[in-house]
């Protein structure tokens, strides 16, 4: 997966246009991963009497 979006300037040189919006799923996934990992740690901590 490309991390960035690219275009071309008037001379044909490649220029960056921004991020590849497929990374939106990565941002959401990373946020949900923090939530899941913390929730599991919290659950295990309670089971172990923490």
């Amino acid at each position, binding site marked *: 997966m490309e991390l960035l979006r690219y275009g071309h*300037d008037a001379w044909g040189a490649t220029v960056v*246009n*921004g991020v590849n919006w497929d990374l939106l799923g990565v941002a959401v996934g990373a946020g949900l991963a923090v939530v899941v990992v913390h929730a599991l740690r919290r659950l295990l901590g309670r089971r172990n009497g923490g």
Partner: protein
Amino acid sequence: MSNQSDDSLLRHAGADRFFHWATAATMLILLGTSLLPVVGIRFAWLVPHWVAGLVLTVLVFFHVFRAVRVLNLKSIRLQGADFAELKGPKAPKPGKYSLAQKGMHQAWMLVVLVAIATGLFLMVKAGVPFLERDPYLFRLRTWGRLTLLHDLAALAAVFLVIVHVYFGLLPEKRHYLVAMLRGRVSRAALSKDHDLSKVERGE
């Protein structure tokens, strides 16, 4: 921290609670107007986006002014001693804000400042009623880099919203949410994770 009573402390003044919730609403509008078209929900997003961006800019100026003139910057500044919290339950308790709370604030500060700084320039490229559109202000390469930073700020904001809302809704953190809604927090709830003597010293 002023306005202290026997069993509760004022954690967030009304002006700061207004800033928090107004910023939250503005961020959701900014993320909605920028990212819904990305996932295929098409609408005229530009006007609500730049209007919300300007509102956010005004709110941040208001917050910075209050932080410098009224609030105690020492309580939110991330310092080396804050990382002692990582040692676990035996570590000294923090003052008003924990390491995680300071980290969240610094992350939001970085994301919002990058979004505002790049967004103000991108308004010149897009054209708004009070600014003459000038897509030739910068070279295409520079516009691309500004857009890249603006996009990265948006992605980071999505991550931060998810994490911030999750921790804000946890039952054991409920007193923080109540304090952000009503202003006050009970000494008993706060003392579980914070050193009240430090809080009262403004640390």
